[in-house]
């Protein structure tokens, strides 16, 4: 979706300010929002792509005004209700109507293993690559209303396949229906001038990870 989360190349956002000795979390609620999000994923009602898409669907003005973990909280509430773990009424009232049987609930002893395997995007499927390393490609000029990992700034631009990383889950369909649509993932090199025009440095480039379905031969 052409949302405000797709920020590459926007102006006016201000300077990058690095905080010295930054803590992992700036308040107790941030830590809890983080942990609740990770722990709730253990029920496997949604995948990482659906999780990202839930945050992208925050209304644009709210997204820009929110802190990072407020976006996570927004996304988590959405995922819980949309996937039937919590009803809208329960979320509103805070009172449980139904208890779960505890199956799939992450326990402290299982945390390390859960973190190790939580995201499995590389697939063993035998799928032929559509492109070869060194091949010239053009990123498709697509504007899906749903989730996509093809940033706006790269659409319609020419690039070169720098590396073939093998077969991966395709996030654009995985986020919308759970369909993994196994296909090759590449690093595609775009010259800075191709993306940003003649004012960009002639030496520089931006590498974007894109999938077969994002690309056409150039």
């Amino acid at each position, binding site marked *: 979706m052409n949302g405000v989360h797709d920020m590459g190349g926007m102006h006016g956002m201000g300077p990058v300010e*690095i*905080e010295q000795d930054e803590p992992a979390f700036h308040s107790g609620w941030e830590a809890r929002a983080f942990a609740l999000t990770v722990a709730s994923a253990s029920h496997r009602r949604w995948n990482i792509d659906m999780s990202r898409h839930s945050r992208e669907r925050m209304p644009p003005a709210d997204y820009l005004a929110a802190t990072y973990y*407020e976006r996570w909280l927004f996304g988590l509430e959405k995922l819980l209700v949309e996937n039937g773990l919590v009803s809208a009424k329960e979320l509103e009232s805070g009172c449980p109507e139904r208890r779960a049987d505890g199956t799939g609930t992450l326990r402290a002893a299982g945390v390390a293993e859960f973190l190790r395997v939580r995201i499995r995007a590389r697939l063993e499927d035998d799928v032929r690559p559509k492109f070869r390393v060194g091949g010239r490609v053009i990123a498709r000029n697509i504007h899906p209303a749903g989730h996509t990992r093809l940033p706006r700034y790269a659409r319609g631009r020419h690039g070169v396949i720098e590396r073939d990383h093998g077969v991966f889950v395709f996030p654009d369909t995985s986020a919308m229906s759970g369909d993994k649509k196994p296909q090759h993932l590449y690093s595609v090199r775009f010259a800075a001038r191709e993306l*940003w025009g003649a004012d960009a440095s002639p030496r520089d480039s931006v590498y974007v990870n894109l999938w077969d379905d994002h690309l056409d031969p150039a």
Partner: protein
Amino acid sequence: MSDHPHHHAGDDHAREHDRPLSGPALRVKALESLLVEKGLVDPKALDELIDTYETKVGPRNGARVVARAWVDPAYKQRLLADGGAAIAELGFVGRGEDIVVLENTPKVRNLVVCTLCSCYPWPVLGLPPVWYKSAPYRSRAVINPRGVLKELGGEIPDAVEVRVWDSTAELRYLVLPERPAGTEGWSEEQLAAIVTRDAMIGVVPVTVPGSGR
């Protein structure tokens, strides 16, 4: 409009930063109570998750990887060929993502960003800092990397190539910074101590403290 946190509540910025919209602290507390009562989350697992990223997993992991690569050429070769496997040799394992290691040289500077969200190599750097997840960095790193690098770590000469890596997949990047001059003969531990998180994201070089380099 940045994500930058402020701790002085009550000023004009408070609403759009620490305590905005509808009181996230209250909402999180209510949500945790509900999920615990429903049996969907175990508070002890939450404590364990938080402790993991507050005390166990952070940029010290990545610094050990970098220091090892600086002293052990065979390890560096393995690291560049298959980042995930070489990192696992040191006992750091992640969330199933591949990790690609990008080597800085006198001719090439690498810079990592995630313009669409906040993808970051958790196993070696822990959770990303606020600035990495912020609108200023996500918007500017791809269109004006030299501007960002100049502000944060000094101007990059024209002759040096800047490569920006937008983390759009479950494939994370770790920058292998250049080993600074003046560290000849240092132990792996000494070297690891000077490797910073920001150097492994690529926004600054590694410097020897006190040397002015």
